[in-house]
């Protein structure tokens, strides 16, 4: 009986702790998603200002963004814009 009560209370406490842990991690993930969107919008703005990839990387690294993630995002955006222009060209033809 006492063991059952103890087990019940321990599982309640651990359940609440793990639930809080999960919620914190979800908030952390949402924050990171937001930052990724912010990074993409910065890269796009700089691309519109005709900055080279190296210039974009240098500016953003100076602003303490992750260099690897900047390169990945630049690559993704370049590929997407290239695909879009190709698609537009095909449509025109």
């Amino acid at each position, binding site marked *: 009986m006492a063991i*059952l009560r103890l087990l019940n209370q321990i599982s309640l406490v651990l359940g609440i702790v793990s639930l809080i*842990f*999960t919620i914190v991690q979800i908030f952390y993930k949402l924050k990171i998603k937001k930052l990724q969107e912010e990074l993409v919008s910065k890269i796009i703005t700089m691309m519109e200002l005709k900055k080279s990839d190296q210039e974009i990387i240098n500016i953003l690294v100076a602003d303490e*963004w992750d260099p690897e993630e900047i390169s990945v995002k630049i690559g993704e955006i370049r590929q997407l814009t290239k695909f879009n222009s190709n698609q537009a060209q095909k449509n025109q033809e």
Partner: protein
Amino acid sequence: MAKKHKQLKSRISKSEEKRINEKIALGIGLTFIFVALFLLTWLIAEQEGDNIYTPDKNFSKMTPKEKINYVQEQEQETEDQSNYQLAIALGDSGYCEEIQKLSLRLKCEKEVPGVISISKKPKLELTESEISDNSDYQLAITMGDSKYCEQISNKEIKDKCLLETKG
């Protein structure tokens, strides 16, 4: 805050995202396990008659009618527990039938193994001859041996005993 924001900016790589996803999955898994364990232990405790989370209203705040009901309930619970303990100690399922609380009665009937009471009377109210018959009957049923039935003085019980130990 600004420092934390800057720290986060340098940590938004794909591997970090993957790590967070793993942590979320781990958190959800652990939450499910602990919630299941919590519900299971709660359910078992309730079945055992231990009301862990039932709100216990303060006795002094109860109305006279509630007080009477509360005292009666407590008395009944004590009597049930006493019958349960007797049934277990004496191995006589007759006491289980006296238990009012269904969950405890079922538990009692389940826990008193292989004993079939021949009398609905509590053991303390039985005569010497009845006790002897009861003992022989229980022995015959437990051992599956009809020779113990021969010693039973009550004809009705003797026949019942012989019939049940025949196979």
